[in-house]
């Protein structure tokens, strides 16, 4: 069964880049969200078993999404993909329950490394 993957980023270019970075052999159904509010909505609909989450977004930012996931106990494994690479930002998102942190710009190698390290990519 294909895993539902959600890419949540306000930039359409970044969403495209992220989708391209997913390992081709990984059996997934990719969904998109353009801000945190759409992202949370998609997760509630079960579209975000694995979520690639940007931090700097309008309406509801990545921190807000992580807080909502934790508060409402939503089923999502979150990998933060962000241009904000300060040590503090990485620490904050880990505390909020993010599984991993990937520095932008994303590429196939970085995505594959994290997916393998955390055993998220199965059946490959």
């Amino acid at each position: 069964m294909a895993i539902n993957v959600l890419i949540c980023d306000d930039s359409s270019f970044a969403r495209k880049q992220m989708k391209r970075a997913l390992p081709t052999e990984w059996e997934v159904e990719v969904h998109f969200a353009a801000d945190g509010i759409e992202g949370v909505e998609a997760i509630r609909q079960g579209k975000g078993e694995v979520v690639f989450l940007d931090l700097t977004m309008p309406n509801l930012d990545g921190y807000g999404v992580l807080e909502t996931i934790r508060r409402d106990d939503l089923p999502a494994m979150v990998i933060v993909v962000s241009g904000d690479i300060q040590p503090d930002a990485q620490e904050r998102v880990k505390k909020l329950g993010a599984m991993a942190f990937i520095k932008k710009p994303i590429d196939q190698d970085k995505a594959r490394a994290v997916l393998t390290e955390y055993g998220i990519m199965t059946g490959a």
Partner: protein
Amino acid sequence: MTDITITEDQRDCYQELSNVAMGQAADRLARLLDAYVVLPIPKVNMIESSELDMAIQDAEKDTAVSAVCQGFIGSGIAGEALLLFKDTSFQDLAALMNYQGPLNRYGELELLMDVSSVLIGACVHGIGEQLEIHFNQGHPVVLGQHCMAEDILRSGNHQWTKTLAIEIHYTLEHVNIDCDLLLLFTEDSVLKLNKVIDYLLD
């Protein structure tokens, strides 16, 4: 000259490239000052050189600032980076940098050059890296100390009439440090940049 514009997709791409570059610059600054830099969404616009002051937020216009400008060029693409540093920020910056000397014009200048070399260098390099362009940087030039931001932006003698302007507004958490970084590309460069961007978008 043909009218240079950018499409919504191109704007989005410039914004994302800036977002990554400003994050790298913020990381450098955060490590230098041991503080957290708040990152906004960068503003990308095509503007006339006569309305350069439109590139920054209204709230910033009538603030006293000290400003540095530094040109960069590579692969036929040229532009300049402009850092507008709020004068009220020097006190806290001196404290974070452990600056021991007197905080007069010269002391401020030293701090300003330190911050601008970190922010401008990392940001220009970050954008270049993503576009696979190596930018050479010129010497930094001090445009003024204790001037109105609006006056600095209006005083420029620019060769272009229309430019791509990227505004990044940096603030620090818990301390009073506030500055604006503007990246301005020349008119000719925008056409070339757009081609590179289209390639990325393809």
